[in-house]
């Protein structure tokens, strides 16, 4: 029997087991591909995404880590309907079965988790079309031009509002009406988290292609957002299920050992970060034990990482997993606290807003000069000032007028401003 036919039979069996357990996934498209493709899908987040050097940088890093066996990617799965899963060409039969079970659970998660409800499921095609348009812009307006503009847009790609009315702005995207020339930009009535959307709506002097690029990056950021927001529970879910499904299969001794080894590798604890596979798996197992199997499905539907950990990370789990808080003292990182509440709260703080600083547009007509006033909602961790000073000019490049960012340094409110030239700093 050919490998492909073998894999097909294996997948069929795994699907049956998954169905029996109650998993409900999108229709699956398994594609076998060489390692290099997996690196590139990993770097881009999607096979059809537009080209940019930053993806090339990620590609190089992933490839290097892979070549040096620092990490290994077995699969990649994307949130689309049908759901595409890419399997590594040289996977063994056991590896492929584990991966198939794992991605089925991801697919089930994509389909049922509430945070994915708004994501367009045809993003593969959408991104391909966007990539084509960006390529056309490069041809027409020059590669350097487009790349430089993308650099600026990507610098603020995290600043979207995943809970707002997501795709309303898109309708007036490319070719949409330019705000009336000369009219002062309306200050938002309420602070607006959607920085990209705000620039798209109110930015003056942007060419159509530039507005389109902003809209593309914004749509993609919104599409990816739930994946970053559910990293732990999504991986936990997939791990929880590949374990269950693999244990239901009829594996021989060698296969059992191979599976056990691979699984153990996946859930290896790390000293300097949290392994999402391990943490997510253990929380789900604990939920099953305490509340029954029904509850597991409810959690999968309702939670993102923050609510997942806030509701279900217990003192016992923190103890069992040996979680601790560490911080930098001098040149070293040292264990600070082991109290479970401190661990939980630190985790949640780091996961909040997908780990990005929470920045709002406070005013789009600051100084009544159409200047952009942003505010960082400080929650105890300061911003990286050198990065801030390099990012502000990029925002200026998009906005076309002076930009300001208010934040907190040494417990004092401070405003960084960029009028062109050099970034200045003023304590309030």
């Amino acid at each position, binding site marked *: 029997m050919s490998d*492909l036919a073998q*894999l097909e039979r294996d997948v*069929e069996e795994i*699907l049956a087991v998954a*169905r029996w357990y109650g998993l409900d996934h999108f229709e699956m*498209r*398994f*594609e076998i*591909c*060489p390692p*290099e*493709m997996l690196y*590139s899908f990993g*770097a881009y987040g999607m*096979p059809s995404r537009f*080209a*940019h*050097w*930053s*993806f*090339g*940088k990620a*590609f190089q890093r992933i*490839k290097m880590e892979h070549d040096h066996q620092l990490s290994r990617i077995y699969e990649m799965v994307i949130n689309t309907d049908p759901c595409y899963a890419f399997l590594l*060409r040289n996977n063994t039969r056991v590896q492929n079965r584990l991966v198939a079970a794992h991605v089925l659970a991801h697919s089930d998660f994509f389909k049922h988790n509430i945070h994915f409800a708004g994501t367009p499921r045809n993003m593969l095609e959408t991104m391909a079309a966007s990539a084509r348009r960006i390529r056309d812009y490069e041809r027409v307006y020059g590669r350097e031009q487009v790349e430089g503009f993308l650099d600026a847009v*990507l610098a603020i*790609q995290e600043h979207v509002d995943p809970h707002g009315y997501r795709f309303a702005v898109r309708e007036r995207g490319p070719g949409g009406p330019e705000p009336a020339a000369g009219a002062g930009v309306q200050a938002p009535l309420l602070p607006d988290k959607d920085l990209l959307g705000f620039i798209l709506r109110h930015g003056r002097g942007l060419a159509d292609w530039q507005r389109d690029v902003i809209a593309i990056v914004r749509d993609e950021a919104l599409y990816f957002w739930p994946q970053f927001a559910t990293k732990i529970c999504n991986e936990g879910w997939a791990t929880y299920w590949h374990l269950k499904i693999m244990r239901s299969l009829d594996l021989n001794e060698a296969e059992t050992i191979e599976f056990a080894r691979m699984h153990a590798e996946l859930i290896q*604890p*790390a*000293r*300097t*970060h949290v392994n999402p596979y391990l943490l997510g798996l253990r929380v789900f197992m604990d939920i099953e034990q305490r509340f029954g199997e029904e509850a597991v499905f409810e959690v999968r539907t309702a939670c993102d990482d923050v609510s997942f950990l806030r509701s279900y990370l217990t003192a016992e789990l923190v103890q069992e997993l*040996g*979680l*601790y*808080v*560490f911080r930098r003292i001098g*040149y*070293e*990182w*040292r*264990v600070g*606290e*082991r109290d479970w509440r401190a*661990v939980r709260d*630190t985790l949640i703080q*780091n996961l909040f807003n997908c780990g*990005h*600083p929470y*920045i709002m547009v406070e005013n789009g007509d600051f100084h009544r000069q159409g200047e952009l006033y942003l505010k960082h909602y400080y929650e105890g*961790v*300061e*911003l*990286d*000032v050198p*990065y*801030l000073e*390099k*990012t502000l000019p*990029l925002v200026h490049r998009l906005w076309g007028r002076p930009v300001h960012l208010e934040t907190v340094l040494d417990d004092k409110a401070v405003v960084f401003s960029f009028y062109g030239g050099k970034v200045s700093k003023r304590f309030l």
Partner: protein
Amino acid sequence: MTTRFTVCREDWSLHRKGRLDQQRHREKVRQAIRDNLADIISEEQIIVSDENRLVKIPVRSIREFRFRFDGHKQKRVGHDDRGVAVGDVVAGERPPLLRGKSAGREPGVDYYEAEVSIEELSELLFEELDLPDLREKTESQLVSEGVEFRDVRRHGVTGNLDRRRTIMEAFRRNALRGRPGFHGVSPEDLRYRTWVPVHRPESAALVLAMMDTSGSMGPFEKHIARSFFFWMVRFLRSKYDNVEIVFLAHHTEARETTQEEFFSRGESGGTRCSSVYRLALDIVRERYPPEHHNIYAFHFSDGDNLTSDNDLCVALAEKLVKVSNLVGYGEIEGPYYYTSTLRATFRRITDPRFVSLVIRDKDEVYKALRTFFRSSARG
């Protein structure tokens, strides 16, 4: 409910996006390196590295800037895999190296270090350099050898098989025998490309590398001189087949050394710069007659010369300038400041073939290289 699925294996060989963007990224790295050559080439770790090693260079301009938290001020969570207690170290960071904030491997902090080979770095640097004022000297026309493939023969090395001609021969043979078409290759069809050696005339040059190794040359001064000579040697050897380099180290006395010795040894004692100029003149007279050689001499010192020696030094340097295409004098201004320096004395030399400059900072090694080795010749 039946769930449908497909399994397939596609041909991905044309999917090259990752490679292309990787290439673009590398281009940007190269550009960043080119923009920061002045800083980079005098990095300690490069000068002491062996030739084939890769060096890591912090590259700033290709970071992906964004609003982010100060990683150093963030608390993090880890797993206790072997039992840790409060206060235990879970990760370290190298203390900063030569330059300010150096990137360390620490959790979650985005750092970027480009890895480049010395060779790649040389290539970028040498694009801008040339041996100035190179004249063809009449007799000792040295040649650099190269090969060119210009001929086709019936015998040769398999690797040089000219497949196109071989197949043409097969067609021709079959056609002559009245069986047109291709029916395999027979030995008589084989054709090989063959090379002929070509001689390119090139002028011979001698470089005199002279360095002050006296006690007043501190670690900084030596580092500067070494950096300069490190790149100079690499540059000359990479660009010209026939450049001879003679290394002369001096304090109160001068002597000829090997390249290794030259870069590694440190001595003590006073300084009498005339000694090295005298030795240079001797070597030129005895071994490299100026009518056959283009002579370039570079001398690095901290300028702290014996005052009584200054006049003699100028006189000898002027002699050396007369037989040379260029004499370069680099004075390294260290933390100590001397009021009467050799450079001030050298101002008396008016010959345009004498060039002197001051190096105050590491990044001025680059300036020195560009001043001495620029393609448009002077005077």
